[in-house]
């Protein structure tokens, strides 16, 4: 119980909560907090160049460490610029606390300079938000906010702090125990449901694990438990985009990602399975394809920490609300207690091997040195060159993201940072900044498209300022490739505004910021270029020119079923009915 200013309380609370890094940008309404930070050298403040980047950097920090990311921005435009990253964190369940300055309480509601209704604007894109009107409430609210951001299904929490509340003095207090009066997420799974689930798995002839970001969020132990349960049951595993890394990609039980750009074998196995065990995944439309044709023959078990995810899209036979890690541990224990043995799934695996034989990720390419580089080849070469270095990979959004998901393989969680739910172009580069801050000695690579990268390219300055050795690997096809691909599929190749015109010279841009720039033009330069990127100590931007018109396959077209995958470009028809066009 100490008397201090509101701003000092904010910083003291961050120190008490173990925060080591804050991503932010100063402005009038947060000057008192910035002044308090000045006196607290234990907290590292990373000055970004745009508030959106602060939020994505915090996401990258959070996703790569499992700790909450912290953002500090000013009122008005500072807060509105942060909204995209806050929404991104909500959809991908990333723990984040965003502190926003606000005009003094006496001016709220008067359209004051740099005033916006931050709690109103962020009400539906946060897990929870606060407007603090009394400095005595700052301590309890900050501690509660971190609790809410990190417990249950993680998510972003906004704390809006008027400037006079930062200046006024009050009593800083820490709640003894966070025992929220209404928010008590269920983390322990129901024991009867676990027993029933274990029996269903033991009895299944064609089971499949469908895992998602919830396994990553549940911590590395959850990934370990998943591996153990898969080994016990012998069942195949597929994963959503957000779940990549929870199960090792070199394991023979791994089928690859599922969904719109997932593998043929994972989608066919989902379709033909007699039991789906969904763990921390939410049956997103990118995963299910056409709902009335989604896995028609299967019973479905759904493990999720968020009850509202269960039965939202796909009705399931057995719901288990709880933490993915605890549920997997409980399943392993139940499996042992009942003395279940893995069934002979030989027939199921023979069918899966049949689907694998389509080699759906193969792509046509020319092999001579002067040939243009297929983007898939570039990702594969990047994977081969960085294997063994345990890199952290971030992506922007689009074709390059899907190629990275398909061709870059992960053995461990927290190495793959991508914007899945919101699909935010401009996410990947600042996320790489956040990941590199958290892991200064690791190899952090942002796989980017030339269009997405430009959405937050100003962060090159941040990287230079903090001497971060971030690598950006651009698959530059001079198109908003995914938009163009959809225009080919849906709008008879009318390329409305999908060409990347007036691109900067990325090598010169690198030079302007004191980075190293490398341009790769053909297949013969690919391996050397990547090696130079890895061997260069500081930040590097690689402008890898790839085949312009390559498209991302396999693909479940909009409104189609898992069994209707397009495997190769020549399967494209070029028109689509309105029902399919209307789907996102």
């Amino acid at each position: 119980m100490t008397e201090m200013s509101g701003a000092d309380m904010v910083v003291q609370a961050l120190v008490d909560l173990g925060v080591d890094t804050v991503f932010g940008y100063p402005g009038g309404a947060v000057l008192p907090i910035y002044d308090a930070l000045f006196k607290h050298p234990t907290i590292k403040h990373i000055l970004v160049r745009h508030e959106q980047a602060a939020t994505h950097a915090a996401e990258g920090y959070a996703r790569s460490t499992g700790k909450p990311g912290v953002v500090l921005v000013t009122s008005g435009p500072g807060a509105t610029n942060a909204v995209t990253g806050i929404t991104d964190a909500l959809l991908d369940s990333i723990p984040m606390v965003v502190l926003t300055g606000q005009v003094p309480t006496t001016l709220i509601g008067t359209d004051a300079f740099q005033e916006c209704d931050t709690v109103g604007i962020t009400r539906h894109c946060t897990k929870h938000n606060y407007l603090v009107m009394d400095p005595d409430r700052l301590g309890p609210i900050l501690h509660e906010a971190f609790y809410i951001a990190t417990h249950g299904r993680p998510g972003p929490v906004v704390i809006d702090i008027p400037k006079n509340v930062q200046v006024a003095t009050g009593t800083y207090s820490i709640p003894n125990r966070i025992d929220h009066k209404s928010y008590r997420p269920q983390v322990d799974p129901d024991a009867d449901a676990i027993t029933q689930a274990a029996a269903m798995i033991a009895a299944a002839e064609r089971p499949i694990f469908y895992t998602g970001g919830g396994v990553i969020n549940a911590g590395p132990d959850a990934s370990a438990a998943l591996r153990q349960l898969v080994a016990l049951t012998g069942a195949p595993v597929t994963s959503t985009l957000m779940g990549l890394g929870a199960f090792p990609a070199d394991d023979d039980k791994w089928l690859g990602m599922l969904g719109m750009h997932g593998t043929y074998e994972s989608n066919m196995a989902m379709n033909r399975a007699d039991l789906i065990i969904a763990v921390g995944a939410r049956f997103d439309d990118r995963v299910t394809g056409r709902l009335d044709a989604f896995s028609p023959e299967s019973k479905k078990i759904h493990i999720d920490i968020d009850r509202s995810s269960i039965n939202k899209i796909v009705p399931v036979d057995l719901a288990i609300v709880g933490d993915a890690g605890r549920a997997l541990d409980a399943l392993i224990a139940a499996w042992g207690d009942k003395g279940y043995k893995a069934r002979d799934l030989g027939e199921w695996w023979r069918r899966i091997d049949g689907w694998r034989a389509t080699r759906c990720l193969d792509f046509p390419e020319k092999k001579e040195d002067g040939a243009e580089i297929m983007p898939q080849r570039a990702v594969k070469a990047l994977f081969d060159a960085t294997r063994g270095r345990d890199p952290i990979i971030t992506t922007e959004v689009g074709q390059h993201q899907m190629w990275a998901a398909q061709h870059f393989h992960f053995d461990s969680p927290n190495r793959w940072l991508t914007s899945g739910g919101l699909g935010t172009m401009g996410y990947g580069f600042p996320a790489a900044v956040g990941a590199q801050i958290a892991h200064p000695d690791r190899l952090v690579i942002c796989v980017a498209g030339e269009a997405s990268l430009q959405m937050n390219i100003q962060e090159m300055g941040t990287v230079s300022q903090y001497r971060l050795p971030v690598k950006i690997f651009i698959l530059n096809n001079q198109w908003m490739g995914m938009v163009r691909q959809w225009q080919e599929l849906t709008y008879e190749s009318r390329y409305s505004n999908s060409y990347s015109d007036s691109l900067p010279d990325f090598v010169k841009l690198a030079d302007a910021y004191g980075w190293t720039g490398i341009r790769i033009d053909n297949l013969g330069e690919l391996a050397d270029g990547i090696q130079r990127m890895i061997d260069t100590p500081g930040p590097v931007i690689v402008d890898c020119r790839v085949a312009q018109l390559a498209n991302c396959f396999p693909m479940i077209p909009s409104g189609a079923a898992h069994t209707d995958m397009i495997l190769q470009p020549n399967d494209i028809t070029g028109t689509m009915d309105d029902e399919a066009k209307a789907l996102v």
Partner: protein
Amino acid sequence: MKIKTEAGERHVLAVTVDNEAGILAKITGLFSARGYNIESLTVADISADHALSRITIVTSGPPAVIDQIIAQLDRLVPVHSVTDLADGGAHVEREIALVKVAGTGDKRIEALRMADVFRAKVVDTTLTSFIFEITGTSDKVDRFIALMRECGLVEVGRTGVVAIARGSEAL
């Protein structure tokens, strides 16, 4: 292409929440953001220390949508409990309307007579108008208002539904 909508059944939800600024916006925003219906919504502070409010929401939708509404409400941080009153068996619903009817002569007498049949109370009168207070289910209030339209109805204010489960148990 036509956009299809699904028909549903009426449900009354009782939601207890922290009595704090913005909670009503959070609840109504959830309904609008996710495309759920609100037929009526009432809210008032219900605890001695003013810490809790009770929101009664009348909504409609297919069973799966109602389940989603309950789950979505329940995961909001300031929400303490969500109860579907249709689930718990019998419940009592009431709504109050204030109904202003203007007129003279036979119409005025007919309005008063019908109000008596509906057990509506006269809460204000002038030489040319009545204000009736009627309490009952929404159906009863609807029927009374429909009759008053024929007798010089000029204005209506309704509270929306409040509801509570029968029996000795609390939520």
